[in-house]
């Protein structure tokens, strides 16, 4: 069952002014319940504009976006949409304001008037989901935590709302390699264990290639391709990815191809690349 339907979505910033700019151009696709969709594109390709449509932050200039069967352009749906769709912005920790981690994570539920006892249970649960020990962190100021931990607190403050769809805009930007891996594992776990639908935006293919079920590639506000990684890595899209950014192992394969080396099997993962390079080396030893 598809949980999100995007039909011929066009979005124009500042329409009717000399600054009008088409950020999305006739975009159509759907997202299945429980799926992990990765959205990639270069800077300015329309990624962030697109995801802001999922909870009604932006309204289509033309076309339609429905989430859980609700049209996002209908105002009466917005309260419900905010609960169903959790949107994690870029650098979410910059928006933190509460004195303690507990207050920060509880903020959304408090606003919705949940009873204190339930809030406490859900805050603990959300912190555990992001791999933080509630005993240890609830009383601390978010400011004393490391960058990676602060990012996870920000994620917890969205998870506490128990969204059906989790949308993340460049969630790993600025994190060191271990912080990045940890966060990605947490996100993947949410999909697998809780069947949360995950939509994740990144300007790099590297982290999405092994996590996402399908990849949607945007360029100049248009959908170039939306399919499983094996299909998206087709040679005809390579020039586009070179601009967006590729993991080193894929750049290795593509640069060798440019030198005239032929590979007989498609390469998607690091292991595939290693296997193909190994084959080459074996040949040279003969």
């Amino acid at each position, binding site marked *: 069952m598809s949980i999100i339907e995007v039909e011929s979505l066009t979005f124009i910033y500042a329409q009717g002014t000399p600054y009008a700019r088409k950020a999305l151009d006739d975009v159509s696709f759907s997202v299945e319940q429980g799926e992990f969709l990765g959205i990639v594109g270069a*800077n300015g390709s329309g990624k962030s504009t697109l995801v802001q449509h999922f909870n009604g932050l932006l309204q289509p200039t033309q076309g339609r976006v429905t989430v859980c069967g609700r049209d996002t352009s209908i105002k009466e749906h917005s309260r419900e949409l905010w609960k169903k769709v959790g949107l994690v912005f870029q650098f979410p920790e910059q928006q933190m304001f509460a004195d303690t981690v507990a207050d920060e994570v509880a903020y959304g539920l408090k606003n919705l008037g949940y009873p204190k006892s339930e809030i406490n249970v859900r805050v603990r649960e959300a912190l555990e989901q992001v791999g933080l020990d509630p005993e240890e962190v609830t009383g601390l100021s978010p400011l004393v935590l490391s960058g990676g931990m602060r990012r996870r607190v920000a994620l917890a403050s969205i998870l506490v709302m128990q969204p059906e769809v989790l949308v993340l805009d460049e969630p790993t930007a600025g994190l060191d*390699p271990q912080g990045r891996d940890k966060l990605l594992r947490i996100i993947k776990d949410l999909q697998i264990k809780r069947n949360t639908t995950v939509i994740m935006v990144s300007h790099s293919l590297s982290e999405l290639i092994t996590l996402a079920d399908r990849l949607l590639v945007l360029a100049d506000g248009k959908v170039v391709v939306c399919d499983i990684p094996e299909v998206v890595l087709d040679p005809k899209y390579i020039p586009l990815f070179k601009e967006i*950014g590729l993991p080193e192992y894929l750049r290795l394969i593509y640069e060798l191809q440019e030198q005239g080396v032929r590979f007989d099997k498609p390469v998607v993962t690091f292991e595939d690349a290693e296997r193909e390079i190994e084959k080459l080396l074996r040949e040279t030893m003969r």
Partner: protein
Amino acid sequence: MDQNCIELIGVSKCYQSSSGERWALQEINLKIKQGEFVGIAGRNGSGKTTLARLFNGLILPTAGKVLVNGMDTADRRYLFQIRSQVGMVFQNPDHQIVSPIVEEDIAFGPENLGFPREKVKELVERALKDLGLEKLRNHAPHLLSGGQKQRVAIAAVLAMQPAYLVLDEPTAMLDQQANIQLIRHLKRLRQEYGMTIVLISHHMEDLTFVDRVIVLDKGRIQLDGSPASVFQEINTLERCGLKQPEIVQMADNLRKKGYQVDPDIVNLEQMVEHICRLLKLKV
């Protein structure tokens, strides 16, 4: 005493805050010689930025000494000279762009150093050329892309002809294309002017192009050596929150399986070259 280097002797730095004191750096002894291309890696909070800011006296050590070409950064008489010797590029170029026009922004530094008009013009021209910004000279910096802005910031520092160029995570905001270009520019500056470059990054791929990698963690130097040797210390890297670059990882795996892969290979270009050489040998 060695005059042509940045030298840290027993440097510690402590930050005071309401929640107590925090030692960002402890007992650092380090010498960066002129002409070196040094990479500094470490996880968030490892002390990288603190270290960078000590290099030109933006902050002073709590204990120990920082000497730039023999001048103590704690001695205010030297501060102007030190700052003109050690140029800094910060993570976010928006934080250091001052003028509404690219070439004026680049002229700002040399003008303030009191260079004559003709000299300023010459320095600006060269910096524009070095960073490939000639066509953007009359543009407004704030309307440029992240990568272009970062190049303007570097050009502005370069125009002051510093002996040392310190870049604090300059690639964090860049996409891959811009990142590759930036590294290329840095390599050229080093080759053409013999400029000393200190590149701070936690993208291990950026550090495969330097001569020397220093890994910081918990405010101390954990590793210091050539990229090839540092990237072999898998356990230490992991303890410091870092990972081997993918190419090194692949080269290691292949070696373990008994294939001959040159141990100096740490980056993509070298790997492509190595494999092509092998394939051509066969023909």
